[in-house]
């Protein structure tokens, strides 16, 4: 059997999520992604079960593995106790380890995720922070959020928050010592390595496509991966 299959089989999430899928398709029936995208978790489970490296590599380079929303509705319904959503997590991890994620439009978006919530977590200690939630990136947030953001200190103060303050409370400043520990955990456990791989492979792809690559979110490659949609991802109906 294949090397790629062996790599996936080392992932504890995979061990927990796939034992002899009977291809009944119940996961596909309940799946929100299958309703929206041209996506079928039953086929994912079936393909991985072949242990065929050619097919698995095609998956790792594909748009397909990035369609799942990880709601895990499949876990509830599978009569075999399998979890296609966890298989997806294992496949996405391997796709990033091997640098294959930049072959697909949806896979390339990992760069945008790293540059936004990935960096916010280490900078603020929160996965989202009012300073980071730009109206331009989130027009759907609407006028009330725009007002809240404009008056964030007064609004948070009104609601009893401890905005950027010391000690406990809502949106407190996470102590530097805690941020240092978070960074240290990322360094030791592979989090920083994954971030670096996303950066390295994304830079390679940007160079290959001739798109400007720079820091933060104000560069052409970020906007390219954050906004591009070729509109060929959807279910037929």
């Amino acid at each position: 059997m294949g090397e790629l299959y062996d790599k996936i089989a080392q992932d504890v999430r995979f061990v927990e999520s796939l034992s002899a899928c009977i291809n009944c398709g119940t996961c596909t029936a309940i799946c929100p992604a299958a309703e929206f995208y041209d996506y079928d978790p039953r086929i994912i489970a079936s393909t991985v079960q072949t242990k065929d490296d050619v097919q698995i590599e095609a998956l790792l380079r594909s748009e397909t593995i990035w369609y799942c929303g990880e709601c895990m509705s499949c876990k509830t319904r599978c009569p075999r106790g399998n979890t296609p959503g966890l298989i997806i997590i294992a496949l996405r991890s391997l796709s990033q380890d091997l640098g294959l994620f930049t072959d697909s439009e949806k896979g390339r978006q990992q760069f945008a995720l790293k540059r936004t919530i990935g960096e916010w977590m280490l900078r603020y200690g929160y996965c989202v922070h009012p300073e980071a939630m730009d109206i331009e990136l989130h027009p759907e947030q609407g006028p009330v959020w725009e007002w809240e953001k404009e008056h964030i200190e007064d609004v948070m103060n009104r609601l009893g928050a401890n905005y950027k303050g010391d000690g406990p409370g809502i949106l407190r400043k996470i102590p530097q010592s805690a941020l240092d520990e978070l960074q240290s955990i990322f360094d030791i456990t592979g989090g920083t390595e994954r971030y670096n791989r996303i950066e390295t492979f994304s830079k390679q792809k940007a160079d290959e496509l001739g798109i400007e690559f720079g820091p933060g979110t104000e560069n052409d490659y970020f906007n390219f991966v954050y906004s591009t949609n070729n509109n060929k991802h959807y279910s037929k109906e």
Partner: protein
Amino acid sequence: MNIEGKRLLWQDYQKEIADDNYYYARSCIRQNFFPGSEKAFLKILREELGKDIHDEAAHTTCTGIGYHSDIVPFDTTMTVVARQFALMTEAGYRNFVPSCITSFGLYTEILETWHHFPEVEEKVRRFLKEATGREFEKPKNLAHASDIIYKFRNEIAVKAKYRLIDKNTGEPLRVVEHIGCHYSKMFPNKGVGGAEYPYVLTGMIEAWGGEVIDYPERRHCCGFGFRQYIVRANRGYSIACSKKKFESMEPYNPDLIITNCPGCPMFLDRWQYALSEMEGKTYSKDGNGIPVFTYEEVAGLVLGYNPWDLGLQLHQVQTEPVLDKIGIEYDKSLKFKGLNGEDLGEPKSPSFLKFYKDE
């Protein structure tokens, strides 16, 4: 629907929820969008119920949104969660209460993983020691913050100033309850009522006088989908899921939606705004849209808290129709004011959704 049959089933899906001495872990998303809810939760526990709950300054994001966006490896997330457990241990607590459903699901998954793979737990203990010098005990009890309010729903009902009842007709308000997917879809036996009939919010609604609506897409995801919302190119997935739910619930004329997840109320609120701007469509006959609440906001309202202390002014879909129907008193001139009545201006009005301000 045979309600009695469902009640019998729910009896098989009860979980143990600690009675007191809680360690609270805040939610990143809720602190941004629903700060008043976390404030109300602590106030209800401490002042109404006389409980001890620890509010920790040094905990961080659990990285759950990053984990489910696949940019954070499992080892990293497990070690960050182990650090939260270490802070709980050091503070002298063993009953862990996350405010976030993504966190709750992740903590549950990690504890289950460690149960089935003890070598993984040992590896994480080594990682944590090396990275931070810390050690930890696992929680004796893990309950989501909504589990705690559920547990004390009847005590809250006894103290209630208002009930979820139309003051003019005496009829119960018609309530849609929306449970975050990661509350019990992954581990049904860790949620009150399991995955099929989650009772955690239904129990509150019934105790406080409302009537729960059973509609076809009741258990469908709100559409967050992590990368499916965060990346602009994917947001069609997110808004399509919410739209599917709105269209399914609309014929039942709900007065309000109650949620127990950080993201869901934000999406169900904001996507109603976006759909109204895109299609001119509002999902209520009066053009207001369906107001979306957190469970703490509803608990706070029935207890008689000031709606503007609860943060209802931060909702895009206006909540006044629910307040008026129940007969809750409020001062509309203070809605968008600062702590000491400072003038902070007002949000702009949307194109279609009704908007209530000091007029």
